[in-house]
C-alpha cells in the first residue's frame, strides 16, 4: 500500500517534468513534418528545446513603460498552464493531481493564463499588443464555450466531470461508437486548432503585423520572459493533444500507476501525440490561413458541432 502511495506521488511529480520536456519536442516534431511536406529539410526536432535554453541565458529587455504586471504575467501564464497540464491523466488514470481539478477547473486555469497573456499584451501600450489581445479574447470567447460543450458531452456520458472518471468510464466501455463523441471530438479538434494558434485561425510562424494573434501579444517579451511564454504555448499544444488522445482514445492508460505500466502507457501516449502532431502538420500544410472575420464562422461550426454532440448525447443516447 505504502509503495503504491509513493508511486502515485512520484507519478504526479514526474508528470509535469515529462511534459515540460515533451512539449517542445512535439512542436519540433510538427515543424519537422511540416518542412518535409514542403520539401524542406527543416530544423531538428530538438530545436525548440535549444531555443528555450538560449532564451533563458539571454538578458531580458523590458520596455520602459511596462508595469510590474508585465514581468509577473509570464510566471502566471506558465504556472497556470503547467498546473493544467498536471491535472490531465497522462500515464495513469487515478492520480492525486487529477482530483484537485476537474475539467471545468482545467478550462478555468487555461482562462487564467489567457487573461494574463492578454493583459500583458496591452501593458506596454503598443498598437500590436492591443490588437493581439482583442483578437485572442474574441477567438477564445468563441472557443471556450465550444470546448466546455465538448467535454460536457463526455461528462454527461460518464456522469462525472472528473477527468479520471471520464477516462475510466471510456476505458471500461471498450470500443463504443457514439455519434455524440464524434461530434465532440471534431468540435474539440477545431477548438484546439483555434486555441493553440495554429493555421487556419492563427499562424505560429508569422510575424506579419496584421495577421498575427498570439505572436502580437508576446511581441515585447524577450529573454527568460519570452522563453516562459513560448514554453507555456508549447505546453498548451501538448495539453490539447493529450486531451484528445486520452479522453477519446484512452487505450493503454494504466489503471493504477506502476513504473513499468507507466512507461508503457507513456510510450503509447507519445505515439498518439506524434500521430496527432503529424496530422496537424498535414492539415497546416494543406490549409490556408483565414482572415480574422472568418474565424468566428470556424468557431461557430465548432460550437455547433459540440452542441449537436451534447444534444445527441442527452436526447438520443441516454434514452437507451
Amino acid at each position, binding site marked *: 500500500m505504502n509503495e503504491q502511495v509513493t508511486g502515485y506521488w512520484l507519478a504526479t511529480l514526474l508528470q509535469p517534468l515529462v511534459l515540460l520536456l515533451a512539449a517542445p519536442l512535439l512542436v519540433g516534431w510538427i515543424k519537422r513534418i511540416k518542412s518535409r511536406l514542403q520539401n524542406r529539410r527543416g530544423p531538428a526536432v530538438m530545436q525548440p528545446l535549444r531555443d528555450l535554453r538560449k532564451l533563458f541565458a539571454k538578458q531580458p529587455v523590458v520596455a520602459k513603460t511596462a508595469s510590474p504586471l508585465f514581468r509577473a504575467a509570464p510566471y502566471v501564464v506558465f504556472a497556470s498552464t503547467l498546473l493544467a497540464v498536471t491535472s490531465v491523466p497522462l500515464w495513469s488514470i487515478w492520480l492525486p493531481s487529477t482530483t484537485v481539478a476537474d475539467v471545468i477547473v482545467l478550462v478555468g486555469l487555461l482562462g487564467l493564463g489567457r487573461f494574463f497573456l492578454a493583459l500583458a499584451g496591452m501593458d506596454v501600450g503598443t498598437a500590436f499588443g492591443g490588437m493581439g489581445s482583442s483578437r485572442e479574447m474574441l477567438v477564445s470567447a468563441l472557443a471556450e464555450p465550444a470546448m466546455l460543450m465538448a467535454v460536457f458531452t463526455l461528462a454527461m456520458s460518464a456522469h462525472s466531470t472528473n477527468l479520471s472518471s471520464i477516462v475510466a468510464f471510456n476505458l471500461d466501455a471498450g470500443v*463504443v461508437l*457514439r*455519434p455524440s463523441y464524434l461530434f465532440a471530438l471534431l468540435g474539440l479538434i477545431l477548438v484546439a486548432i483555434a486555441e493553440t494558434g495554429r493555421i487556419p485561425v492563427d499562424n505560429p510562424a508569422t510575424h506579419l503585423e496584421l495577421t498575427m494573434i498570439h505572436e502580437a501579444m508576446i511581441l515585447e517579451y524577450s529573454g527568460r520572459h519570452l522563453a516562459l511564454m513560448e514554453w507555456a504555448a508549447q505546453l498548451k499544444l501538448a495539453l490539447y493533444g493529450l486531451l484528445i488522445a486520452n479522453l477519446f482514445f484512452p487505450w493503454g492508460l494504466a489503471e493504477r500507476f506502476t513504473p513499468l505500466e507507466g512507461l508503457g502507457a507513456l510510450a503509447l501516449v507519445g505515439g498518439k501525440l506524434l500521430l496527432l502532431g503529424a496530422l496537424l502538420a498535414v492539415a497546416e500544410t494543406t490549409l490556408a490561413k483565414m482572415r480574422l472575420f472568418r474565424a468566428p*464562422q470556424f468557431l461557430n461550426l465548432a460550437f455547433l458541432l459540440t452542441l449537436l454532440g451534447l444534444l445527441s448525447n442527452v*436526447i438520443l443516447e441516454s434514452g437507451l
Partner: protein
Amino acid sequence: MTQLPLLEQAILVLAALTLLASFSMLAQSRLTSAIHSFAWQGVMVAAATALVAAVGHAHHLYLSALLTFSLKGLLIPWMLHRLVRRLNMEREVENIAHPALVVLAGALLVILAYWIALPIERLELASTRNIIAISLAIVLLGLWLMIARRQVVTQVLGFMSMENGLFLAAVASTRGMPLVVELGIAFDVLVAAVLFGVFFFHIHESIESLDTGKLTRLTEEEPA
C-alpha cells in the same frame, strides 16, 4: 448504449456523419465544396445501407447500397461538377446572409427532429429511433438549405439530400423498400438530376446567373 453491437453503432455513427454532411452543405459557401459534401453524404448513406444489409442479412440491400454509391456518391456529383465547370462557376462563392443564423436555425431543426422522433417506440434495430430522428433532421435540413440559399445548384443539392434522408429512414426502419421501388426512385433521381442540368443551362443562358433571386426579373410587373 453499450448493449448495442458494434455494427449497429457503426450504422448510427454513419447516420450522424450523414447529418454532419448536411450541415457542411449548409455552412459551405463554395459551390464545389458543397458538391463534395453531397458526394460524401451519398457515400455515407451507401455505407450505412451496406451495414444494415450485413446486420439484417438482407441481400437485396447490398444492391441498393451499390446503386446509391454509384449514383449519389459518384454519378450525380460528377454531373453537377461537370456542369459547374462548364458554366465557369468553379470559383463561385455564394454570399450567405447571416451564416451564423442559418446554421443556428439548422441546429434548432435538428432538435425539433429529435423531439418528434422521441415518442417512436423501439423497433427491430435498437438504434432505429435514433436513425429515424437523424433522417428526419436531414430532410428538414435539406428543405432549409433550399430556403436559405438562392443558388440553383445549392437548392438542387438540398433537394437531393432530402432524398438521402428519406432513403436512410426507409433503410433503417423497414430494411429498405422493395427493389422495384428503389430502382424506380433511383431512376427518378437520375432523371431529375439530368433535367436540372438542362434547366441550369437555360436559366444561365437567359439571365446569365444561377441566382434564383434574379428570377423575379421575369415577372411582368415592374418590381416595386
